[in-house]
């Protein structure tokens, strides 16, 4: 159990703008020494949270990017067969071929063996269910079992973060072992802070206007609402190049043709309203 309590300002120092809720949950996960499962739409800062936390806690970040078909060879360990063969050819008396020398460590094993690490399992929902089952031992017991070597237990003081875009439901067994947090699109207050810290020479009022505007876009029921980073990029481009129009360069913000059409319609409606043609 960790006694270190993080504060909002610790996050802000690392350029991560978090709500008190999120800070509380991170503190609880650290205290209980349990993995943290962060679920939410793409582009809301889940991966960035892990990066910032690794800085804050001075832990080495070890990342495992999940994808369909990921298995233990890619995630935990693999035996270096070529090296084993070569060693047999060179030294006929070589008996023990299953030692650390021939073991290729993959992220899970590496994180267990690193004493002070933050292990990020990114986009766990992209992996297969079998892989989730593989993770259970690591998450609950902080150990993996290698048949030829035995059980490798974690060095301690490791913290695990799992992220998911919720494209599929994760198993109960996995959820049960984690502290859960749903990271939604940021509030206007947080988004304003992010814009202020990322866009140079922008006033607070202007930044707030842009964040209100992006919350307006996210309410439009788009197929793919703009993420935080997309909003920041769009504001950056528009602000630095003095593009005042809201319908220019929307490709930076909205990346779906139907969404763009809907957005333009809503802008037009808004303009009509402004000009008094819609009552």
């Amino acid at each position, binding site marked *: 159990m960790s006694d270190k309590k993080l504060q909002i300002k610790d996050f802000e120092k690392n350029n991560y703008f978090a709500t008190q809720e999120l800070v509380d949950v991170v503190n*609880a996960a650290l205290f209980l020494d349990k993995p943290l499962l962060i679920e939410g739409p793409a582009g809301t800062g889940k991966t960035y949270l892990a990066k910032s936390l690794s800085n804050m806690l001075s832990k080495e970040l070890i990342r495992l990017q999940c994808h369909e078909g990921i298995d233990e060879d890619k995630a935990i360990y693999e035996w270096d067969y070529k090296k084993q063969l070569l060693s047999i050819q060179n030294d006929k008396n070589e008996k023990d071929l299953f030692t650390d020398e021939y073991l290729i460590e993959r992220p899970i094993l590496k994180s267990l063996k690193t004493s002070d690490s933050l292990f990020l399992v990114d986009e766990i929902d992209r992996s297969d269910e079998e892989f989730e089952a593989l993770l259970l031992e690591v998450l609950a017991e902080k150990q993996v079992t290698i048949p030829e070597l035995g059980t490798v237990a974690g060095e301690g003081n490791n913290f695990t973060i799992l992220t998911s875009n919720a*494209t599929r439901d994760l198993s109960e067994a996995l*959820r*049960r072992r984690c502290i*859960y947090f749903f990271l939604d699109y940021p509030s206007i207050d947080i988004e304003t802070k992010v814009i202020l810290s990322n866009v140079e020479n922008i006033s607070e009022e202007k930044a707030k206007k842009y964040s209100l505007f992006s*919350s*307006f876009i996210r309410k439009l029921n788009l197929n793919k609402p703009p993420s935080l980073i997309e909003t920041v990029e769009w504001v950056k481009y528009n602000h630095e190049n003095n593009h005042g129009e*809201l319908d220019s360069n929307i490709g930076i913000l909205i990346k779906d043709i*139907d969404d763009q059409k809907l957005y333009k319609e809503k802008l037009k409606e808004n303009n009509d309203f402004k000009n008094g043609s819609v009552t």
Partner: protein
Amino acid sequence: MILKTDQLLRFSQFCKENELFFSSDRLSDLIIFLKKNELDNQDTEINFLYHLLPTNKLEKERLKDLINEFFGYSISAGQEEFLHLDGYKLDTMTDGQINMDFKNISDDLLNNFGDIDFSRPVSNVYWLNQIKKSQNYIDEIAFFDIEFNSALDSIVNNQNKETYVEMLDLALLERIQELRNQFKEAYVPSDLSKKEDLQEKDFLFTDSDERNKLLKETRQLGLILANKFIRYSNSSSKGKLNFRKTIRKSLQSGGSLYKTVFKPQIRKKPRLILLCDISGSMALYSLFGLTLLFGVVQRFRSVKAFVFIDGLTEITKDLQRLKVNNIKSILNSWNDYVKVDGHSDYQKSFDDLLASKSVFNSNSNSLLVIGDARNNYRSIDKNTIYRLSKSFKDIYWMNPERSQYWNTGDSRFMEFQNICEHYSEVRNFMQLKKFIMKINFKKVIK
């Protein structure tokens, strides 16, 4: 720790009674956390309870209501933001802030509205709408009616207006409820209280915003259903050992068998067949049915989705191509799915299904039907029922009709009930969720 352990246990029991289960280790983690951290007040402890117990978003939303009910404490959803724009009239602002004392504003509006006869058996929303039509209410929100030169300012202003109206309406509804409670004895309380829980609201009576929210959740349920089926149908893709290829491969490594090669497994994957009745009698329920189908199809390939009225049409590929906002387009092209007269015909539709290649030569498939089984006084052939029961490993049926009307008039549901693994009335999201959670695909025997 301010919250007592037995209080937490009673709360856990209360959650169980309301069909929200938490494992004991989650509860013990929470107690350990609260004991060690010595938080300064009960509200903070309840906030931690809200963060640490749930394992998914749905649970979190449900827990919010239960906390409110049990502890009388509402978890704040975050304060909505207002942005000061230069164009606002200064007399409505204090220190650059909009007057947000909604309780006082709503009191003023109610007092100035004149005599309101709260004894009338109408809903609170009715009174809210009456007040919204009043000149005082229109004046109250008039300070947002300012023209801005910049489109951005104009949008921001509209956003502010929406938030303001939403919060004012909420305060008004609360005040109306308080006032009406004074007349409570004359009425059954359920008539007066607004049905707060959206999840239990009949799909038919949802407004556009509520519907969008529920459709989003329904799609998620589709993903869960697909996931359940994958879990039971998946098996290793490896077939038997390919001995010849393994030996050949071993030559590369001087004869050591370090790489084994397997034959691809050739086996018919069980399929999930989804049927949704989109005839007129299904009304809005078919949209929810289609959204569920959409969720399943998006996640899972070994699925066939059909709609039917008086004949069957496969829409699997259409759903795969569709975007989430366009599900309605299937209902908009309703005419394309009419085969004969546009009146639902279960006999013809199931005959079409049994004749289709999707179910041909396999009895390991599962069938999920969303329909009211109203057959327009047409008969159902017993042989069709028998063939259905033989062709599918298990059949699930969601009927959007109230159960007391089943098997009345032209409903032929009784004939299907016997062959269903599970059937239930599904008229709201809570019922839909329960149904999906209850589905338990049996392990496929190979």
